[in-house]
């Protein structure tokens, strides 16, 4: 356990080594949120409801994406692809912990750091802009949305590790990662809740893993899903976790068999 705590400390120390760089990163997060927030304010101007959402409901969704996004989508698993290609993975293979747990621990550190700052940033934005935010007070709903958030965290981590593991066969995983980024931006519900899409496209999105990163936990939080829909969503998310987990294991074992540490 101690070694994992040390990994978390080292990850935090890495971020804090270049403080100006860190501050710029946080500024970027705030600006991104402001841009989408003002876009939706413009779309809502003069209307009480749009796409089945009140202004409060939708702005709550948008503001909370800046809370959920860093928890789900901040990851250090991107580094694995580079480590495979430059051969530095060899150093980690001889260490007394698995590479998977190493990156999982790094992700925990990354997400904790993001969470602390995201709370501060959202508080600042709420204080300055005073958006009509909806607060969920029902315990059961909060619990279910937290479980859904956990599903999203695990799913995203596995998806990212799979893309990084492709580094065993290709010298550059950036293009594939960028493609997944585009699909995530659209189908995860970062810019808008997925249920404003045309019905057919929305139904398809429910069977893709992306919807469980951001949209699903937030939809539960805003009280927009029945219990049956929540259970169905959790079941689909779990199936994806099992499937992606199996795929990652398969890729990792096959990858290690062809790994030659070319960079070293």
């Amino acid at each position, binding site marked *: 356990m101690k070694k994992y705590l040390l990994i978390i400390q080292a990850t935090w120390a890495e971020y804090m080594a270049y403080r100006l760089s860190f501050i*710029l990163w946080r500024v970027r997060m705030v600006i991104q949120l402001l841009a989408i927030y*003002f876009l939706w304010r413009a*779309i809502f101007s003069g209307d009480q409801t*749009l796409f089945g959402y009140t202004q409060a409901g939708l702005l709550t969704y948008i503001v909370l994406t800046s809370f959920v996004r860093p928890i789900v989508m901040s990851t250090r698993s991107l580094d694995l692809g580079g480590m495979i290609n430059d051969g530095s993975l060899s150093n980690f293979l001889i260490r007394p912990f698995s590479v998977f747990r190493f990156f999982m621990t790094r992700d925990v550190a990354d997400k904790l750091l993001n969470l602390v700052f995201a709370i501060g940033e959202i508080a600042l934005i709420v204080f300055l802009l005073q958006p009509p935010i909806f607060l969920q007070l029902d315990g059961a709903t909060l619990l279910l949305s937290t479980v859904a958030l956990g599903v999203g965290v695990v799913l995203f981590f596995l998806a990212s590790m799979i893309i990084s593991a492709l580094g065993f066969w290709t010298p550059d995983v950036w293009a594939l990662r*960028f*493609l997944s980024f585009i699909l995530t931006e659209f189908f995860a519900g970062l810019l808008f809740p997925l249920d404003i899409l045309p019905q057919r496209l929305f139904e398809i999105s429910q069977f893709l893993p992306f919807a469980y990163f951001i949209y699903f936990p937030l939809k539960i939080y805003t009280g927009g899903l029945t219990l049956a829909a929540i259970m169905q969503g959790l079941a689909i998310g779990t199936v994806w976790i099992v499937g992606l987990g199996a795929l990652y294991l398969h890729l990792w074992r096959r990858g290690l068999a062809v790994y030659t540490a070319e960079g070293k």
Partner: protein
Amino acid sequence: MRLNLAALMAYRTNFINSVLASIGWGLFSLYSVIILTTRITSAYGWTREELLLFNGLYGVIIGAFHMFISVNMGRFSRIIHFGDLDGILTKPIDSQFSVSLWLVDFTMILRILIAAGYSVWILTILGIALSFSQIVMAVVFALSAWVVLYSLWFLVLTNIIWHTNLSNLVRLLYVFESMGRFPKEMSKQLTGFLFLVVLPITLVINTPTRVLLNKVVVSDVVLLLVFTLVFGSAARIYWLYALRHYSSASS
């Protein structure tokens, strides 16, 4: 150009992924705005069709910018951090030109073509028949917009010569650049100071779009041309000043 194309196609799978990513990016960014504006007829003085045209032109102008410029800006921080600027400075070619235009991202062509086709389609819906002078003016202002964007990026990134670890400045600039996706009138919601910061970026797409819609605002045109001159000159002067303070990583 040939070297860039060869480098892009060296790894076929990567090339195919890049092409798919470019197409996807172009399609999804345009479709997102279509979805978002489904239920509105106007926003901040722009009709829905005008907003769609705005986004189409954003795809063309910014797509071209990403094709030639921002791909080099990402490299910029690396060459300074690792001292590779030494080699560039010894070459018989202007250093600013070399740093700014060395790489070309050919996959952006697809995004540009998709956005251009989409813009033509929107213009047809709007029933706008473009005159030759309108097209020329729009191209001139688009070029001015590129100069403004490039100069802003270059001005900011030149600071990496003093702070070599600010590699995520590029990502911050992408976020600022994305503010240009929205009309200037929407950005006015920001507090005075913030609006002033993003004002040059809001003119980048605003002005060429208004030219095509026959709704040119003279003050915006003047501002854009002034920004082009001021920022273009400032970027050059600042770069030459910064080079005097460059200390290679190897020396």
